[in-house]
C-alpha cells in the first residue's frame, strides 16, 4: 500500500529550483533511505514530506489526500519528524519533552487524556530514556538526546517517521544504537521510516529501499543490491569503488578505492 507519494513535485525557492519534477512512492511499513551528495536536494525532499516546504509544482500525498491540506494536528498524529540538531530550552527535562509529543492529541476543551501518561511512559521505555526522565536535555550525551527526541516523536503515535541524518553527530556505537532502534521500531510497530543518511553502509544494512538523488533528480531507487554499484559511486559521488557481496551477511558490500578528479 502506498502511504506517502510525491507526484512530479518541483521544489525549491523562487529563483533556485532544487528538485525538478520528482516522483516517489513510499510503501507502508518499509524503511526508505535517501542518499546523495551534499547539495543534491535530499534534505529538500524531506522538508516537503514534513510540510516545511510547499512544492512549487506537483503534489505530495498522504494516502490519496493532499499532504498540505491536512490539518496540522491530524497530520502530527500520523507522521512524526526527527529534525537535525533540534534545540530546546535549557531547563527542559526528558519527560517534559516527551510529553510535548502528546500535543497533537490534545483537544482545547479536554484535559490530557488518561492514557497520555501511559503513552509517554511507553515511548520513553521504547527508546530507553526512562531512567533519565528527570534529567535536563542539556545534560544528556548526543546519543541520549537523540533518543529523547525520538521518544517525543513516538509519543505522537505516528505511523510514519521522518529522520533527517539521525546519526550525524554520534559516535560509531551510538550511530549503530540509533539505527538498531529505528529498525526495531519498524519491526515491532510497523512504522514506516523515511530517512536521510550519509553512511551508505548503514543505508545498505538497515533499509528496505534506497533512493539515490543526484542534482535534484532521482538517479536510481530500489533494493540496496539494485542500487549500490560501481557505476552509481562514480556518477553520483565521483569516487571509485569496488562492489561485491558480504560473505557474512549476503548483503551488497563496497569499498571506496579512490577519488575521481575532474
Amino acid at each position, binding site marked *: 500500500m502506498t502511504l506517502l507519494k510525491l507526484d512530479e513535485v518541483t521544489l525549491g525557492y523562487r529563483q533556485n529550483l532544487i528538485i525538478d519534477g520528482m516522483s516517489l512512492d513510499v510503501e507502508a511499513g518499509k524503511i526508505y533511505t535517501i542518499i546523495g551528495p551534499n547539495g543534491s536536494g535530499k534534505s529538500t525532499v524531506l522538508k516537503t514530506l514534513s*510540510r516545511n516546504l510547499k512544492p512549487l509544482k506537483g503534489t505530495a500525498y498522504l494516502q490519496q489526500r493532499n499532504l498540505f491540506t491536512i490539518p496540522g494536528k491530524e497530520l502530527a498524529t500520523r507522521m512524526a519528524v526527527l529534525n537535525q540538531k533540534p*534545540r530546546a530550552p535549557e531547563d527542559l527535562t526528558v519527560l517534559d519533552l516527551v510529553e510535548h509529543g502528546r500535543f497533537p492529541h490534545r483537544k482545547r476543551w479536554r484535559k490530557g487524556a488518561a492514557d497520555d501518561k501511559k503513552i509517554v*511512559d511507553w515511548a520513553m521505555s521504547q527508546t530507553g530514556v526512562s531512567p533519565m526522565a528527570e534529567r535536563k536535555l542539556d545534560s544528556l550525551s548526543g546519543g541520549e538526546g537523540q533518543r529523547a527526541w525520538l521518544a517525543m516523536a513516538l509519543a505522537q503515535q505516528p505511523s510514519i517517521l521522518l529522520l533527517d541524518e539521525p546519526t550525524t553527530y554520534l559516535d560509531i556505537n551510538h550511530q549503530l544504537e540509533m539505527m538498531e532502534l529505528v529498525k526495531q521500531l519498524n519491526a515491532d510497530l510497523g512504522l514506516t521510516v523515511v530517512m536521510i543518511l550519509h553512511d551508505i553502509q548503514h543505508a545498505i544494512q538497515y533499509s528496505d529501499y534506497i533512493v539515490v538523488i543526484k542534482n535534484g533528480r532521482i538517479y536510481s531507487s530500489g533494493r540496496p543490491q539494485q542500487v549500490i554499484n560501481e557505476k552509481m559511486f562514480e556518477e553520483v559521488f565521483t569516487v571509485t569503488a569496488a562492489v561485491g557481496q558480504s560473505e557474512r551477511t549476503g548483503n551488497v558490500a563496497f569499498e571506496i578505492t579512490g577519488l575521481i578528479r575532474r
Partner: protein
Amino acid sequence: MEINNADLTAVVSNEGLTKLRERKIWRIWITFAFLTLALISVTVSISKGAMTIPWREVWSHLLLGGEGPAREVIWNIRFPRTLIGAMVGINLALAGAILQGIMKNPLADPQIIGVNAGAGFFAIILLILYPQYNHLLTPVAFAGAVLACLIIYILSWKDGIRPIRVILAGVAVSAFFGAGITGLLVFYSDRVHGAMMFMAGSLSTRSWPQFETLLPYTVIGVVLALCFARKLNILLLGDENARSLGLHVEWTRLLLTAVAALLAASAVAIVGLLGFVGLIVPHAARLLVGNDYRILLPASALLGIGVVTLSDTLARVTFAPTEVPVGVVMAVIGAPFFLYLLRREAR
C-alpha cells in the same frame, strides 16, 4: 547490537520522580512568593503617601468600606492608581514574556515591536504641537503604538512572521520614530516637561477613567496569554519541531504578537514609555521558575504587579512632595537586582 532489555522495561525511577516533584513544588512556591510580594506591594502602595494609612485600615476600607478622610484618599486617589500600576505591570510583563518566546530572542520586549517608539512619537506630537488636546493623550498614544506595530508587521511579513525580520524591521522603525521624537524635543525645548514625564513613564494623576480604559485589554490579554501557554511551550522547540507537532507556527506567532502588542500598547498609552518591565520582569521570573510558560506567564504577571506598584510607591514617597517618574525608580532598583540574579544563575 541489541538495545538492552532492562533499559526498555525500566520505568522512571523513584529518585527521578522525587526530583521532578521537588522541581514542580519549588516553582509553585516561587509563584506564591510573587503573589505575596504583589499583595504586599499593593497594600504598601495604598498605605504610603502624604498621609500614611495603616495597612489594617487599608484592607478594612477596601473590603468592608468605611468613612473618614482615609476613604477619600483610598478610593479617589491611591486605589485606582495602584490598580493601574498593577495592570500595567501585568500587561508589560506578559507582553515581554510572550515576545521573548515567539521571537526566540532574550532581548525581545515590547519595544522591539515598535510599541514605545510609536506611542512616544504620537504622544509627543500631541503634547508639544497640540497641547490643547492633552485629554486625548491615551487614544493618540495607543494609535501610535498600534500603527508602529502594523508597519513592522507589514515590513516583516513574507509567508509568515520571521523573528529576525521583525527584530530588524523593529529596530529600523523605532529609529525612525525615535528621530522624530528627538527632533521635536530639540525644536520645542521650552515645552518638553510633560513630554519628558511621558517618555519616562509615570502613574501620577492616573485614576478611574484610565482604569476603565485599561481593564478590558488586561482581562482579554491575560485570558488569551494563558490559553496560549502550551503553544508557547511548543514554539520553544523551534519552528520545524513545532510544525511537526501540528502547531500552525505562522498563525500562532502572528496572533501572539498581536496579543503582546495590545497588552503593551494599552499600558504604554496610559502611563508612558516604561521600557524596563517588559524586558526584565519576565527574565527575572524565568531565572526562578524556568521556561515552562504555564507557570512563567502567571509568575511574570505577579512579579510585574509587585515591581510596578512598589516602584510607584517609592517614586511618590522618596522625594515627596516631588514625584520621580516611576520608570526611573524601576531602572535604578531593578537593574542591579537583575544583574545579581544573573550572576547567581551563572555560578
